[in-house]
């Protein structure tokens, strides 16, 4: 029973200097860019690929096609049907993970040095030559439908679905990336082929590799792995218009504890105010037990097990969001406290001590993240998706430390918006009225 799961961890000034990891930016002979951290102490490589676009590339009328397509990549490719593909992966003890989010298709691969070449051949087949056999389509479709059925009666899933529908409307962000039972049932093999062509293209891929491999080896590997993908894919989705009327949207569902999501407009990570807003969020609800929301809602009043907030910088929209869960007879009070803290932070700002504590935490924690091949590969590919340079790793702490008390309190006044802060509550809360249809 984990007491509370820390959601955001991020930098340390006083750390001892260590002979370091070198992030090398390479370009393959075929023209692909990748980040590489060589570390030969364990005989395997962690390879991360991200294709920008993800499930937001679904064609009109084919919602869920990208998600289903990604679920099928390991279900038969090249000469091998699903069973033979898995057998071959197991024999090589390689690990491939395929997943789809609103903004990206993610491929995570781990393979041993001793079986690197055949492992990469297999991975290549799954990306370049997936079979999409009819029996595999029906099997994976049934799994997706089972997941959708289960989500229909899960209060957290209901809250996410209803919040997305309210905020994003007809934009792809406004509906479940897996689709609806009806849309998934109607997907054809052609929809899946189209989704594959649209999502996996060279013009939108980000690559990082960490572990037992040299730059020359990686270059050749990547050209072989991705060289035959199409040069370009489907157009990226437009910006999303946000609907955030403020107030409360109630969704009736018979369960003892209400789940509430809260959302206001967010901030782009390239905006000059981003670092101040980021620290501000840490103080508000981003940290561990010390954040204002945790202190006021959990530690002082015992109204919840966990309450947190974060800034979601998505490709097509930015929101400042969070969640809380409290028993039906207590959630109204939890929401009132969150609103009051939101307003107090906007009007009164943070103290010098809070800012200092946040900076020491954020700057101290950042280097601790770089502690394994898998984690470093994942951070490196995320940085590329965010448009950050490799030297961000060394400069980030300075950017955190540069934020002044005046600046963060100005950002609090300008960005925190309790009037737009909209709550979507699923449950049967007492003393709470719906103000949003």
């Amino acid at each position: 029973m984990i007491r509370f799961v820390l959601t955001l961890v991020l930098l340390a000034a006083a750390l001892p200097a260590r002979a370091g990891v070198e992030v090398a930016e390479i370009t393959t002979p075929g023209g692909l860019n990748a980040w590489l951290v060589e570390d030969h102490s364990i005989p395997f490589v962690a390879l991360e690929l991200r294709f920008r676009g993800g499930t937001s590339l679904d064609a009109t009328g084919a919602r869920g096609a990208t998600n289903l397509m990604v679920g099928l990549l390991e279900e038969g490719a090249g000469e091998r049907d699903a069973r033979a593909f898995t057998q071959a992966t197991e024999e090589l003890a390689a690990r491939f993970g395929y997943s789809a989010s609103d903004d990206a298709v993610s491929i995570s691969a781990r393979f041993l040095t001793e079986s690197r070449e055949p492992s990469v051949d297999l991975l290549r087949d799954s990306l370049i030559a997936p079979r999409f056999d009819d029996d595999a389509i029906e099997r994976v479709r049934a799994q997706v439908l089972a997941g959708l059925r289960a989500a229909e009666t899960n209060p957290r899933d209901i809250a996410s679905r209803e919040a997305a529908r309210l905020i994003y409307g007809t934009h792809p962000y406004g509906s479940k990336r897996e689709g609806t039972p009806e849309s998934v049932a109607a997907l054809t093999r052609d929809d899946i082929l189209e989704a594959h062509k649209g999502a996996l293209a060279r013009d939108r891929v980000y690559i990082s590799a960490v572990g037992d491999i040299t730059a020359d080896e990686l270059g050749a590997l990547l050209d072989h792995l991705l060289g035959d993908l199409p040069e370009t894919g489907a157009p990226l989705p437009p910006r999303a218009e946000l609907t955030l009327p403020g107030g409360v949207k109630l969704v009736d569902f018979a369960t003892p504890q209400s789940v509430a999501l809260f959302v206001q407009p967010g901030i782009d990570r390239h905006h000059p105010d981003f670092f101040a807003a980021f620290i501000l969020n840490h103080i508000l609800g981003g940290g561990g037990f010390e954040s204002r929301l945790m202190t006021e809602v959990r530690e002082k009043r015992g109204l919840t097990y966990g309450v947190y907030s974060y800034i979601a910088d998505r490709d097509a929209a930015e929101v400042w969001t969070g969640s809380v869960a409290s028993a039906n007879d207590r959630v109204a009070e939890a929401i009132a406290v969150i609103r009051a803290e939101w307003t107090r932070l906007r009007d009164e700002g943070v103290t010098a001590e809070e800012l200092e504590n946040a900076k020491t935490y954020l700057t101290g924690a950042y280097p601790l993240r770089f502690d394994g091949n898998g984690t470093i590969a994942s951070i490196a590919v995320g940085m590329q998706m965010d448009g950050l340079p490799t030297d961000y790793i060394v400069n980030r702490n300075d950017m955190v430390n540069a934020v002044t008390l005046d600046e963060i309190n100005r950002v609090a006044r300008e960005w925190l918006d309790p009037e737009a802060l909209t709550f979507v509550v699923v449950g049967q809360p007492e003393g709470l009225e719906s103000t949003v249809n």
Partner: protein
Amino acid sequence: MRRLLAACLVSLAPLAAMAQQVTHFTLENGMEVVVIEDRRAPVVTHMVWYRAGSADEEPGVSGVAHFLEHLLFKGTDTLAPGEFSATVARNGGSDNAFTSYDYTAYFQRIAADRLDLVMGMEADRMVNLRLDEADILTERDVIIEERNQRVENSPSALYREQKSALQYLNHRYGVPIIGWRHEMEALGLDDALAYYTRYYAPNNAILVVAGDADPGEVRALAEKHYGVIPANPDLPPRARPQEPPQLAERRMTFRDPRVSQPYVSRSYLAPERDSGAQERAAALTLLAQLLGGGQTAVLTQKLQFESQIAVQVGAWYSGMSLDSTTFDLVVVPAPGVTLAEAEAAMDDVLTGFLETGPDAAHLERIKSQLRAQEIYDRDDASSLARRYGAALTQGLTVADVQAWPDILQAVGAEDIMTAARDVLDRRQSVTGWLMAPEVTQ
């Protein structure tokens, strides 16, 4: 073709020949220490594990082990409530804790040069906790909301709780770790303090330090902070009521209107890993892989690929347990398939497997994946720390943990069949159906 744009100084130290080395020793007061060296990044994970979990509670105060875990973040003689975590955070670290049936563990992840600081605070709260009634009441509300979130809001979690209670007639594994709600609501200061004084002592604790740490330095720090705490001479022997042999199959049907995807699951009472005798558990570990570990597993192939009776199947065996554990199966039926049909299909597959035994190539693939697992695992020192902590609080030794990979490799097909015949016996099982209420006119 290759251009070096940037060389950033972050973390990875020059390469070591081996990523990890494990050192083990015991302080004079009985506290065991395990040091797992991974010098690639200047980070340490510092953990203290107590050989005390929810199954060590007295009857009537279920949830007190977990409640106390929350209360350890309140004050001590020298630290104000919340100051522990705030101090860790001010030093760039993060901290947390978790409770299970057989152990309670506290950990911090922090820059390697702050080990002294966190060790000092952890040693302090081992014996100097100070609680008042106000702490108790607010934190009790928090754990009840935790129960709401984890259990009451999830029919699956309620179902599993009922099913465990049905599985164990006599052992405390049948009582939820978080506690029965009515008992949680009555937990008081005295209950928490009684558990604390009984079990929190160096001779009932294991220190695990993983990451950028030198065993000699860890020993010096451990002696300074933990070594000065006297052993508790009244620590009770760890003898909990044991489960009798199960002689009759048990069944349950759990209905909840919030169930939109029904399933059937079954647990069989099964032996756990025991020190110096892990062979049967190794065979059961491989059996679970053969039956339900991935796409080429027997249940997956028969029920998802061939008959398409199921949309999902699974098989698990959790051998790490101080007392009797379970071997678990689950089948999620395809639309239009009843739970009775799904269960019958599952039993047909088991019967077939018991006749034919494992496919030799399949068994070999599983073993090569387990060998590779040892290599992949070296990338994550914190998870190795959890493995040692869990083993040493559940009756195993460092030698047992280190022997385990070879024991797995030595398991033969006949060992698996013997274990399968012993364990997959309906008379020692609990079968549950999770479903929506019947529709009445």
